[in-house]
């Protein structure tokens, strides 16, 4: 039997209206404990108003060894950035 508690990823919403952001991970035996631990570890200095916890095993991550094929092809495709448009002066907030 594995005696180590599983790892959970913690997401905190810092204010209403903002999104939950990943802030770290911790150990907990179940989801209730994960929420309580997250509250005690990550929000003790008023960092948040809402907590999400996800057991790390439920997150599928990209393979770092495949970073070349995954991400490098995008490097020379600057035309994918919308920076080639001429904006009229009247448009202020783009």
């Amino acid at each position, binding site marked *: 039997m594995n005696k180590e508690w599983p790892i959970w990823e913690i997401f905190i919403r810092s204010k209403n209206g903002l999104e939950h952001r990943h802030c770290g991970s911790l150990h*907990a035996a*179940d989801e209730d*404990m994960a929420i*309580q*631990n997250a509250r005690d*570890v990550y929000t*003790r200095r008023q960092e948040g108003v809402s907590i999400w916890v996800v057991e790390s095993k439920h997150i599928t991550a990209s393979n770092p060894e495949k970073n070349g094929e995954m991400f490098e092809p995008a490097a020379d495709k600057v035309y994918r950035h919308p920076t080639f448009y001429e904006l009229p002066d009247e448009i202020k907030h783009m």
Partner: protein
Amino acid sequence: MLHEKLYDYLLHLGDNSMILGQRLGELCGHGPELETDIALTNISLDLFGQVRNYFQAAAQIKGGDATEDSVAMLRYEHEYKNTYLVEQPNEDFAHVIVRQFFFDVYHQLILNELMNSKNETLVAIAKKSIKEVDYHVDFSSTWVKRLGDGTEESHEKAQTAVSTLWRYSMELFKATETESWAAESRVGPDLDQLKSVYLERVSSILKEATLSLPEETVFQYGAKTGRHSENMGYILAEFQYMQRAYPNMKW
């Protein structure tokens, strides 16, 4: 006269939280898991924060050069009014959690009543503290259930803690002269009336945790009136050391 009673009553309220806070503080860096370590010391800090409020009020009543620190740290053992329950050692994690649970349920009941106190300071302190203590109750109750209804080993340890610590529970509800005064003058709750709700809440959580109260218990009384257990001297030795060695020192 009234002031003396109120002073004593503030000590009753503050000393329980302070000694339990000190016990939890001993766990700093020694918790079973990093996350639990932080949780328990957070609770300790909550309790000390509440104690400061009580003792600032007490120091004001006392006057002269009394401060929250002198009220907290410069009394003799028999002048502390905390119960036996909170002096009990951190035997193992199950003891820490069960002690906390027995106290938290009581603490929550008391604060709920203090929110209707005739004394405005107590109302303010209770309103500020209740949210913290509601969380303490959640924390310790879920842990009691987790340990009791966990593995065979955790169940056994939790049951041992329940059976050992239960004998110190009823002292919480045995009113001293000061607490009777508080109830009569509607400054504090009538402890006797809270007992049945307490028993109900504790029993229902323990039932979920598949734990049981001992069938026969010889309850222990006396710490509240100054007759402390042998644990108390050791707690105070550590707690008071700095103030005794370096009088009037400040951080």
